């Protein structure tokens, strides 16, 4: 009995030892900066000599009076609400199609759908930018097809610029989520589908009755990841539209960046405060998501 305990203690010690390097790294590289950033969010002034703000919540109060910050929140949630559901449903349908056993060139199709994820965020944004430029390919094609009568300034008009950001996001991330669904689908026994077929369920019914419930954990994971990713959306806003025209497409992360490094402002206090608000938003949304998705009572 005593010996057994010793082995367990030994194993535990070994476990902690293995965990230690990674834990220390996370603390030093991740948690310590977070604490520092939290302290910074109560400070103001140039980064050479930051002082406690007066009142102490000045940066947080400013946020609620800042129209541009509100715009950035509205924009980010607009992208989130429109893009995430479309993307996840598309990804699920694609995964369903590509999971078909009888499909030929499956590998080729899977690679093609996943390929956008292999491109860098900046380069794909720049490619979209040139596609939708006033003298770009899209305008030329649409003009030739007589769908539009004159060149549209896609990225220079607020509504179309937002639409293009959403289209770009869909193009970039659908394949990424599809891979998770594919992996989830492989874990569903074919016999379950067979049984459903025998019972007379059609494709639509099996999809909603079997695939979706069995994929639930994957769906929740992709949802959380997508929400998190969209709330921190940065590259597309910066590279496609620079937040313009007139800051109408700016995202929260982009505005945070502008406050720390753009226009020589270097207002790290305000930027940290906003970053913490975004952090809280992500935490709340992820929590709701987990609660909704939790089937254990």
């Amino acid at each position, binding site marked *: 009995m005593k010996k057994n305990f010793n082995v367990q203690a030994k194993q535990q010690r070994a476990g902690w030892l293995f965990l230690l390097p990674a834990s220390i790294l996370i603390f030093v590289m991740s948690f310590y900066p977070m604490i520092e950033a939290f302290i910074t969010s109560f400070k*103001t*002034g*140039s*980064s*050479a000599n930051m*002082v406690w703000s007066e009142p102490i919540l000045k*940066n947080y109060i*400013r946020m609620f*009076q*800042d*129209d*541009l910050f509100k715009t950035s929140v509205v924009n980010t949630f607009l992208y989130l609400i429109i893009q995430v559901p479309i993307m996840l449903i598309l990804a699920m349908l694609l995964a369903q199609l590509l999971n078909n056993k009888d499909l030929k060139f499956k590998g080729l199709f899977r690679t093609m759908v996943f390929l956008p994820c292999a491109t860098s965020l900046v380069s794909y944004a720049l490619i979209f930018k040139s596609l939708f*430029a*006033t*003298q770009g390919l899209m305008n030329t094609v649409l003009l030739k097809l007589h769908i539009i009568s004159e060149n549209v*300034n896609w*990225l*220079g*008009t*607020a509504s179309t610029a937002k639409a293009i950001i959403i289209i770009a996001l869909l193009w970039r991330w659908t394949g990424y989520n599809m891979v998770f669904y594919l992996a989830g689908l492989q874990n569903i026994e074919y016999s379950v589908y067979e049984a459903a077929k025998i019972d007379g369920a059609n494709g639509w019914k099996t999809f909603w009755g079997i695939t979706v419930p069995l994929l639930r954990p994957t769906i929740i994971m992709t949802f959380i990841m997508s929400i998190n990713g969209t709330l921190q959306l940065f590259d597309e806003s910066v590279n496609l539209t*620079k937040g*313009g*025209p*007139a*800051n*109408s497409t700016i995202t929260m992360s982009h505005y945070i960046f502008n406050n720390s*490094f753009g*226009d*020589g*402002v*270097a*207002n*790290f206090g*305000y930027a940290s405060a906003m970053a913490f608000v975004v952090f809280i938003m992500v935490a709340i949304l992820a929590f709701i998501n987990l609660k909704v998705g939790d089937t254990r009572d």
Partner: protein
Amino acid sequence: MKKKVLSMLLVGVLAVTSLAACGSSSSDKSSGEKSAQSDDENTLTVYAWDASFNIPALEAAEAAYQEKNPDFHLEIIEQTQSSDVEDAITLAGSSGDYSQLPDIVLFQDHYIQQYVRNYPDAFQSIADADINWDDFGAEKTSFSTINGEHYGVPVDNGTVIFAYRTDLLEECGYTIDDVTGITWDQFDEIGKEVYAKTGKYLLSMDGDGNDLPYMMLQAEGVSQWKDGAPYITDNETMVEIINTIVKLQQDNVLYLANDWSDYTDQTIVGDMVAGVMNGNWIIPTIEKVEENSGKWEITSMPTLSGEEGYASNGGSSLYITGNCTKTDLAKDFLAYTFGGGEGSIATYDNALKDGGVITTCISAGESDVYNEGVAYFNDQAIYAKIVEMGSHVPVVEQSDFHYDCRTQIASAIQSITAGEADTATALETAESQLQQVIDGAAQ
């Protein structure tokens, strides 16, 4: 067995690469320290950007100073863009460690006041250098003078030129004199005609980083600032100028590009325009279209009243950093070359020849090189003209928040032209947004 060998190999590769990474990073660091500061007492280091503009000017200055001190060496550390220098100062200032900075930095005029105030230890005053400050355009030195003390030596000249395609003007029955000293309304009429007959816009600008309001306002002798506060909604001249810009845009006289590269590549190099108005550093961009050589000429800006307008936009100066220990050498070098000393003619002549850098130093601008005609501009002596125009630029109140203001005004113009807001509301939004930025930065 095979697997074991493979995994051992992988571990080995990993270990070696991580060691190599450590090794190279430490050696990088030591070489980095060396390049930002030199042990040699006759060597100065400088951060600068733009290999076709500022760097030839610095090389010209090095050569000129070697006449006086043959052992002198200027180590130019090229930066990709001006913001790299700003980031270097921000980094040094935030960490409190200035030891990585070079002896001298080239710095954008509109940013320097803010940086000297935010990071006072990053720069050294050069008030006691042997420089006759009256020999420079007053507008230029107003940027580098902080709390009455001189910090920087001017390099280039941001005097605004208005370049016109004389061949296209002629098609519509106008000469360069017909567009000199006109009102913006007259300009609008001519522009409409030019667009109708030739399909080209008479003016273009980057609608995102829109410099038009600032330049047009300065030509009127008015600032966007009054006693340090934004002067926008109550500023009648400002409102009038914004309305003018919107009207020009609606009349197809002005084209507002989506961003800077669209402005240069699409509108100017893409030959969409019959006129270009900006700081004279835009000239190399105009000259990229070789087939239009000889068809351009430059003149002053239109104004609201119809007098000839003069303004300045952009440009930079050289500053001695707080990390420089060879301050006497640095001051002497700057005074002798860019500061109007004995080597200034040699410096500025070669800077002009090799980089097209035009001086604000009045005595150096009288050199023969400046009076030579430039073939691209129909043999007009544009450099002498620019120096002359530069002397008329009115000094207007500047602010630490110049670019924030530019961003807000540009947004206002975009929302007016998109029909989302009227001038009054758009400017009100801009002003309150700007005030928030200022309040937020206050301690």
